[in-house]
């Protein structure tokens, strides 16, 4: 290429700027004056302008409508698959140690006691295949606040939509759904839950299902105890958490032989399927076919909050249990 005269070399980048719409008005004017008197630079200006226009013409290039629609469809299906697998989570401190809460589009999916751990990698969520876990503060802030209020006894209900997909089987899901219906401030036995789900012999399987409960506290597996009144177990080895949760709900426990016991003889009892509550000595209770199915309440207030009336035979309203 020929050497440009100095004035042309100096103005070269201004010409590019002016021809491609990148120049300020002063530069524009200077360039116009120059190209008016310098035909070679005028030619350059036109060429750069053509490049700019040709690139601009790409904007109007016809969109391949059918192909794009096909790609959109594929993308949308991949996206909805991703959404199904996506859980947003938050770890927050509580009186029971750090708690991880995770939600999906369908509802609250996981509540996990992390103890002192506080990262996703120490959570069950990280070990689930195909799961996308995204940390999120804002959306889960309200949920964690409600959960804390619940743990402090300031709230007795958590009306959350639940996503039970992390349960390990349909049987587990059924057990969780049944457990979720045990009222606040009441306990039932594992054998009782087994009867309720229609498998009276499956007490141990019920216990396993609750051991893997993905939603402790919200699905109140702490309200399920042994037929002897022993707390038996909770979330592996966290029996003291069970005792604390029950205490918050007004259910007393006594320590006997290194284990916590529910003193059922000092609690109000509900005959299964009945809408009234009794003294534990009520004669109607001795005729039960499945005595394990009795639900015990820590107080009359809790029984009545669950919608029950005092029994007309034993009259717990006239002879309340001494505590």
């Amino acid at each position, binding site marked *: 290429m020929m050497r440009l005269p100095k004035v042309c070399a100096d103005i070269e*980048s201004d010409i*590019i*700027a002016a021809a*491609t719409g*990148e120049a300020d008005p002063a530069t524009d004017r200077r360039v116009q004056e120059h190209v008016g008197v310098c*035909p070679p630079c005028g*030619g*350059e200006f*036109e*060429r*750069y302008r*053509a*490049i*700019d*226009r*040709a*690139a*601009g*013409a*790409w*904007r109007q*290039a016809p*969109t391949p409508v059918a*192909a*794009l629609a096909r*790609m*959109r469809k*594929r*993308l*949308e299906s*991949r*996206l909805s698959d*991703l*959404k199904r697998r*996506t859980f*947003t989570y938050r770890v927050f401190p509580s009186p029971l140690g750090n708690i991880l809460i995770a939600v999906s589009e369908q509802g609250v999916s996981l509540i996990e006691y992390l103890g002192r751990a506080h990262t996703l990698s120490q959570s069950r969520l990280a070990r689930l295949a195909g799961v*996308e876990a*995204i940390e*999120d503060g*804002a*959306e889960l802030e309200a949920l964690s606040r409600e959960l804390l209020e619940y743990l402090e006894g300031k709230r007795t209900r958590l009306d959350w939509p639940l996503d039970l997909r992390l349960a390990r089987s349909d049987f587990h899901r059924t057990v969780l759904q049944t457990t979720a219906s045990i009222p606040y401030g009441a306990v039932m036995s594992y054998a009782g839950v087994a009867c309720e789900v229609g498998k009276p012999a499956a007490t141990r399987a019920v216990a396993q299902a609750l051991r893997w409960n993905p939603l402790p506290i919200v699905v109140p597996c702490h309200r399920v105890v042994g037929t002897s009144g022993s707390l038996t177990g909770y979330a592996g080895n966290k029996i003291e958490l069970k005792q604390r949760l029950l205490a918050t709900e007004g259910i007393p426990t006594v320590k006997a032989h290194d284990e916590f016991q529910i003193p059922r003889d000092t609690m109000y009892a509900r005959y299964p399927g009945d809408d009234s509550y009794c003294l534990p000595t009520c004669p109607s209770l001795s005729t039960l076919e499945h005595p394990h199915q009795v639900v015990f309440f820590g107080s009359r207030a809790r029984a009545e909050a669950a919608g029950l009336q005092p029994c007309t035979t034993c009259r717990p309203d006239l002879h309340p249990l001494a505590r």
Partner: protein
Amino acid sequence: MGQQPFETILEAHHAEIYRYLLRVTARASESDDLAQETFLRAYKAYRALAPDANVRAWLFTIATNLARNHFRAERRRRNAHAAVRATRAETDGTGPEGETLFKETRAHLDRAVARLPLKQRLAFVLRKVHDLDYDAIARNLDCSAESARAHVFHALKKIRQELQAFAPPRMELQQ
């Protein structure tokens, strides 16, 4: 959350992001894959995005990063040259000389842009086709706004030279 649903974003920007990627990769199947990946990543990061963020510029940044990673991987596989050659083969034979400079330029621009170094190509397409400002391009390319501008100018000069090479000197005589 005060954010619009992600579907709206998909609706508004999918076609443009696809066309951008098509422009820089020059292969339809690759640009489809990269566009899909762009939106899947965007979905995962969307919640963390500030409510007043410029979603369009943000999507371009994700797409650019993916394109750059893609080319980096390509280069590692030593296939980069094959890709460029394939592009050239596609456009070869479609360039009878037009009557005007504009048509002439338009006919060869594809080829000239495909020959640009990656950063210049990305900067050129972002600026001239998608009209992003230099600050946004700078964020895309991880450089300063001045460098982004320099990339565009170098690209223009190089395209100009390439076109000179394609267009026979006859054109010079006509001027």
